[in-house]
Structures are given as structure tokens and as C-alpha cells.
């Protein structure tokens, strides 16, 4: 284990990575893993109990929903939407937020003022309402879900990163780089970005968890992907009517969301602990 980099040696990071790897395998190999077509309705066997209960059907290990669709298959296919949204949306939000944060923090003055005010106005909208309004305007579809999350959550990155950039900006090594003739672009990419990168990675990991939740909320109210694509939020919405007959139908997607968010959060927490310069051993000595 000695040769592993410091951040990989953390138990939290390892746990998070294993969870995300399991989810990723489910998403990528969904057609091969899933026992049934997730959208195939089997009206002869609706609300089948799971494999360990009486009257179960071996074809449906976790039972079926009110339309006779296989719960397990839908869960597995739902991973695709969740992970796609988590990765792309958080990446997009990170790009926009990080670029604006570095510009604001580095140049300061009126640029900083302007970006700061935009972020404040943006943050004064309740995020869920804002994303619902955006979805109404943009229409459903996975691309629009991603866009909505990016447009809502970039402010989170911008705020936190800007203060970190401000701290690094005042370091003497940034002044030294300017004195030897570094351009602004080079100063930001070579001197400041390496310092903000750990925070950026950590934030992105936490943002992935947030993106999973926002997507679940949107698909719960039917504002996310279309009805023909299985998503966890939709499954919760579908299971609502039969909550007493088949509680597992509700619990399965809830647990899936919990599992994914837990994975991203513990990864983010582990990364923060090991990458944060204020905490690492080398920086202290």
C-alpha cells in the first residue's frame, strides 16, 4: 500500500470510489446485467412481491410495479440517468463556476464586484423552483436536465472558489511570477490553479451527489427525462399509490439515491481531508 498516493490511502476515498465503481458498472453494462427490459409491461403479474416473499416470480427478483415492470431492471437502468447527470452536470457547473471564480478573485475590482452581484442575485432564487422553471422553459430530456442543473449550481463553485483564489492571490509567489513576466493567463494556470485544484475536485465530488438529488426531484415531478427512460425519481413517484401493498417499490429507489449520494459525499469528504493543503502533513512541516 506504500506506493499509493496519499489521497488514495484514505478509507473514505476508497469507500466512495468502490460505490461509484459499482454504480458505473451497473450503468455501463445495464442491458447485460438487468434480467428484463425495464419498460416491458407485464400486466399479468403486477405488484409481484420480491423473491424472498410468498407468491414471488423468479423472473422478477425485486418484484414488479403497478404496471408489471421489473423493479430491479428499472433500478439498474435508472443508474444511467443518475450518473450521466451527476458527471456531466457537475463538470459543467464546475467549469463555469471555476472560470468566473478565478477571473473574479484574480483581477478583483469591478470584475469581482460584477461577478459577485450576479452570483448573489442568482442565489436569491430558490434552487428547486429555479430548476423547475428552467425545465418548463426548456422542455424535458436528459440534456435539458443537465443544463438546468449547471445553470442553477455554478454559483456554488464560484462562491467557494473565489475566496480560495483571493487567499492564493495574496501569496508572494504570485507577485514573484508577475515580476518575472508571467502573463495573467499563465499566472492563473500555473500558480493559482494548482492551489485551488484540490478544493475544486472536492467540490465537484460533492456536487455530483447534489446533482443526483436534483435529478431525482425533477423526475419525481415528471420534469426530467421522458416517461420511456427509467429514472429513480420516477420510480418513487410511480410507487406512491401502492405504498402499503408494495413498500419495497418505494424503498428500492430511495435506497439507490441514498447509496449514490453517500458514495459521492464520502469520496468528497475523503478528498477534502487528504487534499486540503491546510490539513496535509507536508504543508504543516
Amino acid at each position, binding site marked *: 500500500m506504500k506506493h499509493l498516493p496519499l489521497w488514495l490511502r484514505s478509507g473514505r476515498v476508497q469507500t466512495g470510489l468502490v460505490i461509484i465503481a459499482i454504480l458505473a458498472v451497473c450503468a455501463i453494462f445495464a442491458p447485460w446485467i438487468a434480467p428484463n427490459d425495464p419498460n416491458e409491461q407485464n400486466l399479468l403479474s403486477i405488484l409481484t412481491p420480491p423473491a424472498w416473499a410468498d407468491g414471488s416470480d423468479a423472473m422478477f427478483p425485486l418484484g414488479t410495479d403497478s404496471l408489471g415492470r421489473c423493479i430491479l431492471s428499472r433500478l439498474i437502468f435508472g443508474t444511467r440517468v443518475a450518473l450521466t447527470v451527476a458527471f456531466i452536470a457537475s463538470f459543467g457547473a464546475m467549469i463555469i463556476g471555476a472560470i468566473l471564480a478565478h477571473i473574479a478573485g484574480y483581477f478583483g475590482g469591478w470584475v469581482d464586484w460584477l461577478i459577485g452581484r450576479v452570483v448573489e442575485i442568482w442565489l436569491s432564487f430558490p434552487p428547486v423552483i429555479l430548476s423547475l422553471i428552467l425545465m418548463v422553459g426548456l422542455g424535458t430530456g436528459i440534456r435539458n436536465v443537465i443544463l438546468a442543473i449547471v445553470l442553477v449550481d455554478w454559483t456554488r463553485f464560484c462562491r467557494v472558489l473565489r475566496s480560495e483564489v483571493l487567499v492564493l492571490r495574496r*501569496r*508572494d*509567489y504570485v*507577485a514573484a511570477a508577475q*515580476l*518575472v*513576466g*508571467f*502573463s495573467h493567463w*499563465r499566472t492563473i494556470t500555473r500558480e493559482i490553479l494548482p492551489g485551488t485544484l484540490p478544493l475544486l475536485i472536492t467540490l465537484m465530488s460533492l456536487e455530483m451527489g447534489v446533482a443526483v438529488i436534483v435529478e431525482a426531484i425533477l423526475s419525481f415531478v415528471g420534469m426530467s427525462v421522458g416517461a420511456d427512460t427509467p429514472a429513480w425519481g420516477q420510480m418513487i413517484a410511480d410507487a406512491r399509490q401502492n405504498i402499503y401493498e408494495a413498500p419495497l417499490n418505494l424503498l428500492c429507489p430511495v435506497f439507490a439515491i441514498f447509496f449514490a449520494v453517500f458514495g459521492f459525499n464520502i469520496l468528497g469528504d475523503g478528498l477534502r481531508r487528504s487534499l486540503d493543503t491546510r490539513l496535509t502533513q507536508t504543508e504543516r512541516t
Partner: protein
Amino acid sequence: MTILAARNLCVDSFGGNESFPVLSDLNFTLVPGMILGLVGESGAGKSMIGRTISQFLPSGFAVTKGTLEFAGEDLVAMASERRRNLLGRDIAFIPQEPLSGLNPVLTVGQQMREHLLRIGLAPGEHWRQRALAEFEAVHLPHGAALLGKYPHQLSGGMCQRILIAMAFASRPRLLIADEPTTALDVTIQARIVKLIAEMQKRDGTAVIFITHDLRLASQISDEIMVLYAGRPAERGPAKQLFSAPAHPYTRCLQLANPTISGERRGLYILPERMPGLRVLKDITGCRFASRCPNAVAACTEAEPPLAEIAPDHIAACIRTEKTPEIVPPPLAPARNVETAKNYLQGEKLTKAYTVAWSPFNRNPKFRAVNGVDFTLGEGEFVGIVGESGSGKSSLARLVVGLDTATEGRLTLAGRDITANGSSEKAYRRDHIQMVFQDPQSALNPRRQVGSIVTQANEASGLHASKRERMDRAAELLAEIGLPPDAAMRFPSQLSGGQKQRVNIARALCSVPRILVADEIVSGLDVSVQAQLLDLLLKLRDEHGFSMMFISHDLSVVRYLCDRVLVMYRGEVVESGATETVFANPQHPYTQSLLASVPPDDVQAEWSPVLTETGYQVE
């Protein structure tokens, strides 16, 4: 009656299955009214003694042998409840950083009240009365106004006075002052030291005064103990120890520090560094032997015992008679710098900041630098001295181009560079570079040393290949005296002195004609400081650059610089050849600065000017 007595005290640090000696065989006794100076480089274990007394040791550290008795009670074996009662009441502390010694979110009054209630008030006495009386005792004016202030609204010197007032409020029997003046200006240092001495006389307190400055310690202490690598090297009456040091380490420390008066002499350069905790175990003989100029084979065979060489004066050296033979190297011959007197010239340079306008302040301008005239000749070292806030660093920022002057003119080799546009910046870049004060902040922790020192090659437009850069890095590292393999290390793997060398190498990469050095040796040990000062002189001989050397340490400026500018509140109040200014200061401010430095001659009277100018409540 003894207040504090240490007998064969040993403190070890435990890591893994091993233990490392932190302090060994410590013996000392303190009687009421006595000041014991603890002197040594960083890492010698000075602060560890203070922490052992409070039993506030870092985790993994423990007392393994010996006793430490406070007024007859063993502090180590004592129940923690009992010790807590003693600390802050009978044993008081004055910390190094006055600002971190006070809670920033509570007012001075709240903290004073809490402390006074804890130590107990006389019946019928109100804490407020008492607080004001204590402030009076440490010469803090406007005590009533102070109670409502937060620490950040006060200067460092005032915070330190408040901490001294708190420490002495309980009339402690023992005071531990851990480098109480290191973070302060020279003039304030003098006042604080005098104040501690005055309060100590009033109450008959025994004091442990921890400092790295042997000269300061010899001025105020009755007895001095010099520590080296956790073991006492020498202990004796202060004046005797300073005028006739018996241990070669004491002598070397003394000679590594430049003088403030009399004839200038060379600096004794102690090679390398004090051995770290991990290697101490493998040293069989004298711990100082590897750096000692008098070492012989016998020194490495057995640890030298502490032997009495005069009444009350003991030293751990087997060749004490050879110590006086250590002499400083001869001073480098004076250079005649007659070429281009005004290579860099500033005329009426001013940097004004706009501060908040208010009806009471209708001209809201603060002039950090106010109409400064100066010249810098080729190959000339000019020192700029003054207290913090005098505008030294602001002037440096104007010269290197980090700020633009609001008025005045700055010319470099005949060309006007005041405007600081992109063409001036490019021109300036080839001629002026800066060495920053704090190596911790000046070196990017995520770059390797090789990449840091050749940063100039990376700037836009210059595309040096990796090979070229590595070659240049090796050249630079050889010049500043670091091993070639340092190029692959990160700044966190270097010591403070090595970092500062890297800092200098980066500035030298583009072969500038002028270096601007902002307090580059403050905060370093005297031995490291001496190494760096001689490095700068050596580099000047090789490259012939000139330097603006900003420092609050007058003796360093005296050693290094040909001319000196004295700044006060943004203005130059006196300038001239260093020797002339220091021997015969004209301006009262220069006189008070010089008087604040402890004299070289331990018998001489140290009478710093104790004006209270810096102490108004702002």
C-alpha cells in the same frame, strides 16, 4: 528559597517504537527576583522547557527522567487540578505572538475581567478598578478606553503590554516569557524588555526569558543558559558568559551576529545546521562536534560533561581553553563603488491611498510613501531601516513595479519607468528583481525547486527547453550553495534558510542588475542569517548587482550596506554612508532607533529612549 528547580530533567519524544531525546540532563535553579535567559537556535528545545513547566507538551512527548520542582512541589507528578491552580496565578506566561495571545472576538475588558475574576480580587474591589490599576503599572495610557477595544484595534506592542499586565496581575512567583519581543519592532522590543524587567523588580518575580538573541539576553538576565540540541552547552552569570564565553557554540553564536558599534568585523559562519531529533541518538560524542572549529578526535568519543570552569560558570566542552581562539574571518575589503552613482533614482516618490472620506477628514489621502528621494549606484547596497508602517515595503513595491507611484519620478539607467505600463514592466523585468520576505509564502508549495528557480525562463515569449532549464537550475543551485539534488525537492522539504536561498536564486535567474530584498533575514536564526549575508556579498562579487536591503535589524544593515536611508512615517528622515549615520546620528528618530539596540559591550548601559509616541489609542 528556590522557586523553580530542575534536576536531571529529560524529555523524550516517542514515534513508532523509538524514542528521541528532546531535552536531556537539564539542571537549573531559580530564586526569587532572578532572570534566567534561555538562548539557542530554533530547535534547541528552548520553548520545550516552557511547555514542560506547564505540562502542555505536544502529544508523544513525555518527561522520562528527573524532577521539576516549583516551590518544593514536583510539577510533573502533581495532580492536574493542583497544577491548573498554579498556572496563570503563580506561574504566568507571556507568549511570542501578542495577537494570538488574546481572543479576537472578546474585548480587552472582557478578557481582563475573566482573568481577574479567576485569580481572585480583594474583597470589595471592583474588577474595573483593578484592571485600570494594572494598566497603569505597565504604562498603558487611556486604560478606560482600552477596555472597550478589540485586540485587532490595537498595535502589537499594546497587545503585548496588556498581556504583561495580565501576567503580572496575580503577582506571580514565576514568569515564562517565550520570545516576547521577536514579533515586534526594535524600538518596541526595547520598551517591552525594560517593562518586563521593571515589573519583575516590583514583584520580585523569577523570570525565564527565552530568546534567540544572545546580546539581548545578556543585557537583561542574571544568568544565561545556552542550549544546543536539547542539552545545555553552557550556563553562567550573564555578563561573564557574554564577555568570556567558554563553550565554542556560545562564542560562534556571538560572532555570527553583526555588531552595532565599534569596528566592523566579519561574521563567523557556523556550517550546516543543528542535528535533528532523529540523528541525535547516533551521535556518541559532543553534539556540537560536527560544526565546531575546535573539534578533535576526542570530542566525538564521549559526551563532554558539564564542568565548572569558574564559580557558577559551567560548560560542556573538553577544550574550553581553546574557545577564545575562535576569531571571526576578516572583513571583505571595502569596495569602491564609483561607477554610475544614480543607476536607479527616485525623485519625490509618493504613493497615496484614498481612505474613507468623512466630515472630519476632508483630505482622505494616506501617504504610505511621501516624497522620497533616493539613488542607488551600480554595485551598491543601500539599507532602508525604520519601524513597521514607516513605508519601507511600500517603497520596495514601487521600485519593483508591483505598485505605481502617484507622484514623483523613478528612473532606471536614465529611462523613466514611473508610468509602469507594459513596456516599462518589460524593461524593469530585465533589471530589477525582488526577494520576498516570507519564504513560506514566496515559494509555490506545488512546484519543485528546479522549476521555481528557473521561473523566469517560463515567462511568456521565452521557451526554454526542459534540458536548458535543468542546466540553469543546477547552475543557480550551485551559486547559492544548495546540493544539485535539491532541484527535485518541494519547498516543504527544505529548511527556512534553504528556502530563503531558493528565493534568492529565483530572483537571480534572469541576472538582474538590482535586487530588492524585503526583510529577507528576519525570522531566521543568527547562524543562518550570517550564512545568507555572506552569500549575498559573495554573489555581489560575482555578479556586481546592487541591492535595496530593507530591514528593521540595524546591525545587519550596518554589516551589509554601504549607505542607509532611515524612514519614518513614509518619509526619509536621514540618509548617508552607513558608518557615518550609525556613528553620529543626527535625526532624533535615528538616535532612538540606534539606542533601542542592545549594545555589543555587555558592561555598557543600555538606555533605550522610552518615549510613548507609538502608544496612542487609534
